[in-house]
């Protein structure tokens, strides 16, 4: 293999040394190796792998798993923050109902988010173990890992791990002698951000265009092929084995006094900082600590603003760095925790340009199913482009504000447009002066009397 390819090849890398990570405190990453190599079945089993499956399938009922997950309060790590245990308790099962599907959402495409890649590439057996436990709780007979097509290395790792797990009897019929049957297939996507939306993902899995579905019915009632279907993020599912191994109380205590939420979070920092990367830390860790671990902003520049967890979260200010990065706290400041991976914007970077970049992304990625999203986002983008060029008109900012409202929650089938509205609304709220600087044109100047013809 030639040198340049190797020199610039991307490797997913955790920024914590092995000495810093322990089974008792780092449920997601304690097994990961310093060299970042894939952990195969043997190594995973040597490091307590599949012991939660052995324990649960032998001793507990599916309802016990749901109860423990509810008590542990594992909130959806894909960005939604909905309790996985509560979601599972709403899955229809029993009686004459057919057994349904358990789908892992590995369609990581949220701008600024690079956490699931690490777990998929280096530790796929943890995900598989989490999926077996989730399937047991939800009475699912089959599972899919819905993986974005661009994650080539992750596809190889997951595919290999599924094969190993099946050969070792962790997947298939009568898992670990428990009488429980479950198997998994890898499903790789072909692009489009919208596939990460829960119901769009189900349509995509069914081989259709990835338009979201109307809710209700919720996937837990009627999902893939009309069967009860549970969709959980990679990181959420990777938390399940440790919760079932050590209990809800242990999990809750991982976050100590930092947060009401339980467990740890794979946090990260990107942008112009000295040491970008990923860290597994108690949920509720502050942005200040993360920025500190990231070595601060590069070249001594000042911090202007930051996004706490992806392109669909609201901008926060330097004063908000002291806040606990958990779902409820960040939600009180006009933003969302989202995926918990910070994007840092420095004092010399333009907020208008960045928001234009974000809205261009959302406009391009709209599936086009409902009008506010399909038409509102390109409109928003057009206004932002004029402001960026210094060709904005009086009234543009107010128009953007009303668009942000009209694209907001409750107006569309899914969360795509509301996700686009949040950075738009919050950027104007915090940085109105930057938008105002883009206005030079008089309103409707072109229409005042563009082609005078005199008396007719």
């Amino acid at each position, binding site marked *: 293999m030639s040198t340049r390819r190797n020199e610039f090849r991307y490797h997913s890398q955790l920024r914590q040394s092995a000495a810093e990570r322990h089974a008792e405190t780092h449920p997601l990453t304690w097994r990961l190796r310093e060299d970042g190599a894939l952990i195969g079945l043997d190594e995973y089993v040597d490091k307590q792998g599949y012991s939660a499956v052995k324990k649960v399938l032998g001793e507990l009922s599916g309802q016990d798993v749901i109860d423990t997950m509810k008590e542990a309060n594992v909130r959806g790590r894909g960005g939604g923050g909905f309790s996985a245990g509560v979601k599972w308790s709403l899955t229809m099962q029993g009686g004459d109902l057919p057994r349904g599907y358990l789908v892992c959402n590995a369609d990581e495409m949220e*701008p600024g988010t690079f956490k699931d890649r690490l777990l998929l590439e280096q530790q796929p057996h943890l995900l598989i173990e989490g999926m077996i436990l989730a399937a047991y709780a939800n009475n699912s007979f089959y599972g899919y890992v819905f993986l974005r097509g661009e994650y080539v290395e992750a596809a190889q790792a997951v595919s290999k791990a599924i094969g190993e797990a099946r050969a070792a009897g962790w997947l298939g019929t009568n898992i670990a002698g428990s009488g429980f049957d479950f198997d998994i297939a890898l499903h*790789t996507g072909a692009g489009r951000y919208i596939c990460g939306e829960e119901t769009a993902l189900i349509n995509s899995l*069914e081989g259709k265009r990835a338009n979201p579905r109307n809710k209700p019915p919720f996937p837990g009632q009627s999902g893939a092929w009309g069967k009860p279907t549970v969709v959980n993020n990679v990181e959420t599912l990777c938390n399940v084995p440790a919760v079932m191994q050590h209990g809800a109380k242990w999990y809750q205590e991982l976050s100590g006094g930092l947060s009401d939420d339980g467990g740890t979070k794979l946090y990260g920092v990107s*942008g112009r900082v000295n040491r970008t990367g990923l860290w597994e830390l108690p949920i509720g860790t502050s942005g200040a600590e993360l920025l500190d671990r990231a070595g601060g902003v590069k070249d001594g520049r000042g911090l202007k603003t930051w996004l706490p967890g992806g392109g669909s979260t609201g901008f926060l200010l330097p004063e908000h760095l002291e806040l606990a990065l958990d779902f409820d706290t960040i939600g009180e400041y006009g933003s969302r925790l989202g995926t918990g991976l910070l994007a840092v914007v420095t004092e010399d970077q333009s907020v208008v340009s960045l928001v234009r*970049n974000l809205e261009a992304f959302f406009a391009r990625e709209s599936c086009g199913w409902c009008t506010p999203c399909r038409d509102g986002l390109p409109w928003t983008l057009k206004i932002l482009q004029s402001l960026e060029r210094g060709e904005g008109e009086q009234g543009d900012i107010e128009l953007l504000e009303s668009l942000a409202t009209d694209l907001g929650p409750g107006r569309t089938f899914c969360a795509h447009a509301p996700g686009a509205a949040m950075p738009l609304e919050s950027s104007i709220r915090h940085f109105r002066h930057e938008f105002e600087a883009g206005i030079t044109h008089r309103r409707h100047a072109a229409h005042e009397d563009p082609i005078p013809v005199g008396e007719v």
Partner: protein
Amino acid sequence: MNENASFNIHSPIASDGDGFVLHDEDRNHILEERDHYEQPQAACIEALKIVQRRHGWVPDGAIPAIAEVLGVGPASVEGVATFYSLIFRQPVGRHVILICDSSSCFLTGFDELREAITAELGIEFGQTTEDGRFTLLPVCCLGACDRGPAMMIGDDTFGPVPPDSVAELLKEYA
């Protein structure tokens, strides 16, 4: 769009097949994939990818061919083929370059990287080099934000890619 670098489109209208024949291996592979799902339509995206791996893109004739193997209507295959950004319904170069244009790469040098590639190859987004070597496309956040600006060439992911090293990196793709 640069006229010189435009795609080689024989006909803008979907034809009855242009003599496309589905390779036997691909047919079997599609049937295998079909068994992973409750209904055959689900294997549609994978089927398109299988054809694309062999031909580089999805020729018109592949649409009815896939529809026939799966036992679904051609419209439901075409509808899917035109929705997904990584299914190509026009010929592309031997290597497809995907540059991440999302926020974190935007903050760390996406524009400079894109300009360097455009200067080196003489193509903008959506275009293919005249020698058929490269096609340039933007892509959603590649999940390599800690090492932006990031890009893919074929199946390889790179980051960060300094703009002044682009020429040397591209040389390794014949």
